[in-house]
């Protein structure tokens, strides 16, 4: 078992990764904060800031989460992008599973934990800066307008939901993780221009899925009527067997994607 995963060796791999890519990691935080500030500046400047509630952050939060996550995951397995670095990476004394898990851990799990904190710090540090800026601008213009009141961000709106319809929240987070996993798989499969190629494949899959759903719908119009005999709290009443099968299929697909990424790394030749 220690041959596949050893926590000490994984720690060494983390330290090695940070040592080699430290500038990327160090710069990622301030650059992302600046990008977020720019977005917030445009948002606050274009709305009636007085009405800006904490709930209004939700779309920015999720769009930022997806864009940043896709960017980060498209950089996965960067060492495999050229022949010489691939050679060094594959001969590094750690198991293929540890090397795979490092990317999964940093770019999906740890990112999922750190992103809310990053967003919290980014938004709540910008509000006083923005308000000071507006105050100075108004003073300069000599206008006696009241300052906009902007709500601070809190974690309430983006917390994992456990009440009724929790399944919808689960599906949103699941979909995001699934997207990141596909981008990671694309990164190890395609090498150069991996993000574009991954999106082309995704579009292809979506077209196929659409026609497949249309076909199924056409063949069995009353399939929606098939309802599970069990009802869980949080599962909407109109959930059909097809919906549940689709969810199970997605979970299996996610596991297949992780396995494929790992196998691609394990079987890599150079």
């Amino acid at each position, binding site marked *: 078992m220690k041959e596949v995963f050893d926590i000490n060796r994984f720690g*060494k791999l983390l*330290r090695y990764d940070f*040592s080699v890519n430290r500038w990327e990691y160090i710069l990622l935080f301030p650059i992302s904060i600046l990008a977020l500030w720019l977005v917030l500046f445009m948002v606050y400047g274009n709305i009636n800031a007085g009405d800006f509630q904490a709930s209004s952050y939700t779309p920015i939060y999720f769009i930022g989460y997806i864009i940043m996550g896709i960017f980060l995951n498209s950089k996965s397995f960067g060492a495999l992008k050229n022949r010489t670095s691939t050679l060094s990476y594959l001969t590094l004394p750690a198991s293929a599973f540890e090397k795979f898990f490092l990317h999964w851990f940093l770019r999906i799990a740890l990112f999922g934990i750190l992103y809310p904190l990053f967003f919290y710090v980014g938004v709540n540090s910008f509000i006083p800066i923005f308000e000071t800026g507006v105050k100075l601008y108004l003073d300069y213009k000599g206008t006696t307008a009241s300052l906009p009141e902007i709500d601070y961000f809190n974690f309430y709106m983006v917390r994992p939901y456990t009440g009724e319809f929790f399944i919808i929240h689960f599906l949103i987070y699941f979909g995001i993780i699934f997207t990141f996993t596909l981008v990671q798989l694309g990164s190890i499969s395609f090498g150069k221009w991996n993000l574009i190629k991954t999106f082309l494949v995704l579009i292809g899959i979506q077209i196929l899925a659409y026609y497949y759903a249309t076909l199924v719908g056409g063949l069995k119009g009353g399939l929606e009527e098939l309802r599970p005999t069990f009802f869980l709290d949080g599962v909407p009443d109109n959930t059909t067997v097809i919906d549940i099968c689709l969810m199970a299929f997605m979970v299996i697909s996610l596991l297949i994607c992780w396995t494929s990424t790992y196998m691609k790394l394990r079987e890599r030749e150079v």
Partner: protein
Amino acid sequence: MSVIQLKDVSYGYNKTGYLFQNMNLEVVEGNIVGLLGKNGAGKSSLLRLITGLLKIQQGDITVLGHPPFDRSPYFLQKVMLIPEEYNLPDKTGMGRYARSLSMFYPNFEKERFRSLLQNFDLDPSKKFGKCSYGQRKKFLIAFALSTGCRLLLLDEPTNGLDIPSKSLFRKMVAANLNPDQTVVISTHQVKDVENLIDRVILVDQGHIVIDQDMLAISDRYAFGFSTQQNEAWIYAEKAQGGYHFINELSPGENPTQVNLELFFNAVAQGKISFQSTQNQPAS
């Protein structure tokens, strides 16, 4: 003890043809092997098969008791490959990089590494981006010699080194090897390694054409220089002021130092052939 063992190994980059077919090879502990051959003979591919970077298509390969393509961490910490072309992080200093990489090698000797850097005149604080090709190579050689790995594979190690560094490389390798360490040096610059190796393997068109101890070669052949050409020589090459030649060593004659380049050319031209016990030519 056998460190590398290839049994009927076949490998090719595509399905239409094999680069190696039914190759057999055994390297024992403590050997310093010179893997020689022309460009494209398959030397680097053989090293990559041994390191587990390529997967054999047929046969068996065992390196230090491991199937290399499994790339087990316990295997990888015992084997060190210095390829001809390599990638080092430009923005990282030598010392910092060595610290992060040395953690993976349990027998890494910091003192030895420091002393080797000094001998190679390398500054540990210098970033790789500011190092020349030769300095990067010297760093890798110093690091590899300090890891205490059981098998060291060097692919064209003297390429990019200046003349004093080539000589220093030979001295450093000879001085820093433990008896249980095995080295395979792949090169076509045979002059650079002829005083270092104790065994020679010649690869040509994917086959091992010669696999002999250096002592066996010097016991059988005499290498010399003469101003006069002699028809009895096995092989000769014209040089400034005369001829470098190879002749059968006569009984009672003292062995000479092997001129590996001359020997290589003689073998490549079919003038010398040993009965190889380890290789079965492709059918």
